[in-house]
């Protein structure tokens, strides 16, 4: 009841702020929706590999059972994943392994220099938050206490280079994992469409 009274007591300025907040949230949700559309488009293209690999086999009727199709398509997809993903995977392992060995040899296993360096390099933002319906939300523009700062110390160089060098192969590996998921989804979809027992097909054939 108190919350409702609070709503009634809102000034015009508060109401405008509230509307602006709702519009911003809707905009962010819409961007997420478009990101989903983009990811769906990419995964559709990645899943087309299954069609390329299985087209001749299905066209010639070598495989006529759903179970054989699933088994063979999954086998091909797995080997294709291995062929594409082993290089990024091992590059990532080498990067992370090298960094870990370096920390254990020269820093006695203390990773705090890594977090401290990134803490210094990244901006420190102070958000003015307030309670709104029991939720802490920002009520004003953020204040930058410190901006991006690169002092050029050895720790910062090591932290920065490690992250950049590791992130590239790791990204490629995650993209290959995504393609693996896309192929699995495509296999499942083909199972339910190509091998479907559709009575409409019978009526079309007899028409």
């Amino acid at each position, binding site marked *: 009841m108190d919350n409702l009274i609070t709503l009634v007591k809102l000034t015009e300025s508060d109401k405008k702020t509230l509307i602006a907040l709702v519009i911003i949230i*809707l905009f962010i*949700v*819409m*961007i*997420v*929706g*478009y*990101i*989903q*559309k983009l990811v769906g488009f990419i995964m559709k293209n990645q899943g087309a590999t299954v069609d390329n*690999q299985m087209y*001749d*086999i*299905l*066209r*010639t*009727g*070598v*495989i*006529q*059972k759903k179970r054989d199709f699933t088994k*063979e398509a999954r*086998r*091909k997809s*797995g*080997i*294709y*994943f*291995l*062929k594409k*993903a*082993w290089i990024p*995977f091992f590059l990532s392992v080498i990067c992370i392994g090298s960094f870990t060995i370096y920390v254990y040899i020269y820093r006695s296993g203390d990773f705090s220099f890594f977090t401290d360096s990134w803490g210094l390099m990244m901006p420190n933002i102070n958000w003015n938050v307030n309670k709104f319906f029991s939720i802490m939300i920002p009520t004003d523009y953020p204040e930058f206490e410190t901006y991006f700062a690169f002092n050029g110390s050895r720790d910062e160089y090591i932290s920065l280079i490690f992250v950049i060098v590791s992130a590239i192969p790791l990204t490629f*590996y*995650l993209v*290959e*994992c*995504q393609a*693996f*998921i896309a192929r*699995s989804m495509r296999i499942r979809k083909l199972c339910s469409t*190509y*091998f*479907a*027992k*559709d009575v409409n*097909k*019978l009526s079309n*054939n007899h028409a």
Partner: protein
Amino acid sequence: METFFKRVGIGAIVIITSPIWVAYFCLYVIFGTVLILLTPIRFIESLFTDKKLKIKNHYDIEAAAILNQMGEGYNVNQSSNIPPSAGANMQQPNYQPYNGNSYPPQQPPYYPPQSGYPQNTNTNYNQNNAGYNQNNYPNQNNNGRGGNQ
């Protein structure tokens, strides 16, 4: 406006179900990592067994053989009265194989051979084959019987 709200709705669903998607993705990353780590064992196994670590296997070989056969003269084996040379210049039919689910199974279209004999272009014959008296085949006279008879 409809598109906007549709996209907002999809975005909201994506945000709500994002923990499931992230968990699913993480599971696949772990599965892929295990797959890569087990590859040396599978490779050693493939050296001693028939399970080769190749994308193409016996299914692809069979499919390639069938396609090769279709490409070199698929209709040659369909009918014995077609000369073997006739199939060489034929266009490969767009054949959709029977997948075991539709009935009747789709049959490959029949393309007549490009033989040297004149084709019967007279389509005005009646049901009693009144117009079917041309010399379209060797050893055939006008009454439709063989020339040696």
